[in-house]
């Protein structure tokens, strides 16, 4: 039975709450919080309902024709559900966080309104059933994040916004050209209809290769593949909750998610392999992973270091895709979720240090572990997870990547993972050392006592929760419904021949 209304409702919870928030007066902070949190909880429930229904084999397709040959299509599959689940979980957490973070600052109405729109776009991206619908929400994401990036309204923020738009709008245009060209070639292709492109036969292969590169170029901008990553470190001027969401699920991840869709659901991994493009992907991913890590080493401020770490970590997804075989595929898919949880934790922590103690530079973190133990513990979890220590989520990814490399007959990839892990350690361990083992200087750059605990409970709660999740998805990776379980399901049932 088709129940198309459910994905539409899921989308609508954040899409409709945005104008509602924009209509509420600036002063009505409490009402805004209630509306926003209610919508976030509702959305999480709806996604849970979708997951349940999906496992029972229900069909949730919703679609209509926009113009002949082009349709708006929402459909539910395992990959989309995973991404929708991540985004609605992190929406809730980040909304709680942002309420605490932005307390008493101006323009909160605008912030929360566009924040909801941004989440609506990510859910749209997750549930999109064809490239047209994907593109629609992909561009909407650009538009809804711009006001968030320039939120502070000072020169640096505005300049960062300009760079951000230059990159993303150009990327969007390239993507549009690729999608339209693909339409001109084969018509509307719903995700999962891989045989459509494969059936074109070998004479279409040069054209398909070119189109793949065009589409990859368009998606690579948001996925921050080197050399298209220039906007990301600059966008760090945005408030911490925005950076957290941008890095964990919204913009960067949307790009990576798009690449996953492109490879597995539009072209099909066999065709990409046949076209010989997997090697290219693995090279691009390797360069990005190593470049991002090296750049992260040289950053003296916390948020830029995390930003370059994102550049590097997101490409693990691409690296996993490029390893043709079950383990590589699983690693790439599961890292979509893992990196999101760990990175959002790290950004929450960075925000906590900045809000409570006014710390932006890494050298000022000396002794902060004693002053803010919970935040620092969360940070430690995130950092160790990024390095790949068991039992935190990141370990699972790296383990599967390594096995995938062996399986695909590309042992040099293990060298890449090892080098990258060493670099991860080199830029995270000094921070942990400062947090826990150095003596504080006695005074902080700008201390504010925000709450009864080490900082405001609004800030602390999401931080602790996402840190806990990062451990849980690693510890319980073998349990049904875990991200690893979902990824294994997708890899073995859907994506691999």
């Amino acid at each position, binding site marked *: 039975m088709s129940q198309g209304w459910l994905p539409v409702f899921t989308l609508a919870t954040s899409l409709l709450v945005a104008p509602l928030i924009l209509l509420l007066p600036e002063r009505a902070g409490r009402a805004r919080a209630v509306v926003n949190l209610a919508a976030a909880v509702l959305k999480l429930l709806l996604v849970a309902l979708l997951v349940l229904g999906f496992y029972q084999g229900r069909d949730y397709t919703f679609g209509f024709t926009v113009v002949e040959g082009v349709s708006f299509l929402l459909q539910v599959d395992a990959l989309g559900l995973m991404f929708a689940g991540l985004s609605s979980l992190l929406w809730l957490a980040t909304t709680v966080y942002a309420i605490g973070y932005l307390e008493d600052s101006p323009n909160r109405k*605008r912030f929360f309104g566009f924040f909801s729109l941004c989440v609506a776009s990510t859910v749209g991206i997750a549930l999109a059933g064809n490239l047209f619908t994907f593109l629609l929400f992909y561009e909407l994401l650009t538009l809804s994040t711009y006001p968030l990036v320039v939120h502070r309204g000072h020169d640096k923020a505005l300049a960062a916004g300009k760079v951000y738009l230059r990159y993303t709008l150009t990327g969007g245009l390239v993507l549009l050209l690729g999608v*339209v060209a693909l339409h001109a070639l084969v018509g509307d292709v719903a995700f999962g209809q891989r045989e459509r492109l494969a059936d074109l036969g070998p004479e279409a292969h040069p054209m398909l290769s070119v189109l793949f590169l065009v589409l990859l170029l368009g998606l690579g901008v948001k996925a921050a593949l080197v050399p298209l990553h220039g906007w990301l470190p600059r966008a760090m001027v945005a408030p911490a909750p925005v950076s957290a969401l941008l890095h964990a699920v919204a913009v960067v991840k949307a790009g990576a998610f798009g690449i996953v869709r492109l490879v597995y659901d539009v072209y099909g991994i066999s065709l990409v392999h046949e076209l010989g493009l997997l090697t290219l992907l693995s090279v691009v991913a390797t360069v990005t992973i190593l470049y991002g890590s090296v750049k992260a080493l040289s950053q003296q401020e916390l948020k830029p270091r995390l930003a370059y770490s994102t550049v590097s970590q997101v490409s693990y997804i691409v690296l996993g895709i490029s390893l043709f075989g079950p383990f590589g595929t699983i690693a790439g898919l599961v890292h979509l979720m893992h990196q999101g949880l760990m990175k959002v934790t790290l950004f929450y922590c960075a925000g906590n240090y900045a809000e409570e103690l006014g710390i932006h530079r890494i050298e000022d973190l000396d002794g902060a572990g004693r002053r803010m133990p919970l935040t620092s513990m969360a940070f430690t979890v995130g950092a160790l997870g990024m390095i790949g220590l068991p039992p935190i989520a990141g370990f699972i990814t790296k383990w599967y990547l390594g096995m995938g490399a062996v399986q695909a007959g590309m042992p040099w990839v293990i060298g890449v993972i090892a080098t990258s892990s060493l670099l991860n350690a080199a830029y995270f361990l000094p921070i942990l050392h400062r947090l826990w083992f150095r003596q504080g200087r006695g005074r902080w750059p700008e201390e504010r006592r925000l709450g009864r605990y080490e900082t405001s409970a609004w800030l602390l709660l999401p931080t602790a929760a996402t840190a806990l999740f990062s451990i849980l998805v690693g510890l319980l990776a073998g349990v049904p419904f875990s991200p690893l379980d979902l990824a294994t399901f997708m890899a073995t049932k859907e994506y691999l021949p």
Partner: protein
Amino acid sequence: MIERLGLSPATAPLEHQAALWVVLGLPLLLGALGAVVRPARTWPVVVAGMLPLLALGWLFAEVAGGAGRSAVTEFGPLTLHWRINGLTLLLLLLSGVIALASAIYAPAYLREDVEASSRGQAWFWPLLGLLSSSLMLIWLAADLLLLYIGLELMGLTAVGLMLLPGKAEALVAGLRYLLLALVGSLAFLLGVALLLGAWGRLDLAGLAEAAEPGAPLWVAVALLSGGLLLKAAAFPLHAWLAPVHASAWIPVSALHAGLVIKASFFIALQLWLLLVPAAALAAWAMGGLAGAAVIWGGVMAWRSVKLKEMVAWSTVSQLGYLLLAFPLLVGTGSAVADLAWQGTWLQLAAHGLAKAAMFLAAGNLILATGESRVEGLAGASRRFPISLLSFGMAAISLVGLPPSMGFTAKWLLLHAALAGGHWPWVAVLAVGTLLSAAYVFRIFRYCFIEDAPEYEFRRVPLGMDAIALLLALAALLLGLAAAWPVTLLRGAGGEP
């Protein structure tokens, strides 16, 4: 093409010609009424403005389901030809909506804008009515005589409306516009005379059949297109546009940029498709002009100091997209032409709605800040969120980002260009997108400045904000509902 334009000889006659006369006459009548009553409030205008839309509803019902209608009126020695098909209905509806929006916006605007002289105000309503009627006449006309009458009426009333502010710069710009409009009309008239002399008839369907390639035809088409493109502000004949808008009243600008210049484009495209349907080379030259218009208009919009100037230059740039219809429709295969046909009219509708919304929103912003320069908008996002939101949504459609109507139109045009392998036009569309994003987001950059000095600012009446918002919403959201206008274009126009 004849079928697409609803001019095929097989078209059934319109049953009740009265519907036609009501649609044409009502705006005129209401305009005359407005001159007497001079509405100072919004709601009488809303109520009265619904009447032309109701009349349109009647016409829709008359044509419903069929493949278009034609009508012939004997008027003494003259024979007037009319046609109503899906395209006509779409354009009638578009002009009805935009004219209504401008009319609803006007009373509050005229009240708020202290410089609006009362003599100017008295002339506003009848001229508005006349302009709407002449637009309707152009969409419905199926012979060159009616087209000439409509064009002339439209041009003169537009000049009249532009002159209303009565200020020196408005007079200078308006008189220049008048001069150029007269030159354009003269060229058009010469072209018509040539055609009449060569083939002895003026009805479009008959001319399309009778016309044979040769020097007279080429000279006539060149004269007709030259005159029309001058009136449409097509590159390189666009220089008059920005100054005229800079000093005009906001509702007049909205109507002019949204509809008036489109009417000239509509006639020009129609004549090409009928008279020289295979002139691919000349059409490519038009494509070159389109590219130049997109780029030059975009660059000038990006460099504009004043807000209204930027909106006006963006019209020049956007008209370039429409001009791409020539190379994509003239002398191309039916698959390409089919896509381009839909894309062109969607683009026309999208730009009409978005540009009218943008002018109204810009008017609100200018009225609120009392500052016509772009820099005056510093900090606007906090102070005038609704006006800015309307402006932003209109901008999204202009740039052609989803889910706007501009996006769907661009998608279709891109698809047509790619399907036909016309790479230059793909490049034009791509460059146009980037340029329009550049000039639009330059405005937003100012709006998000936080440490702006606190200027004095006025509160704009809610109605003015609401009407801009509604138009912008239509431009933004109708992209996903494009199936309806496309069915209208195909269904009532007959399959090619």
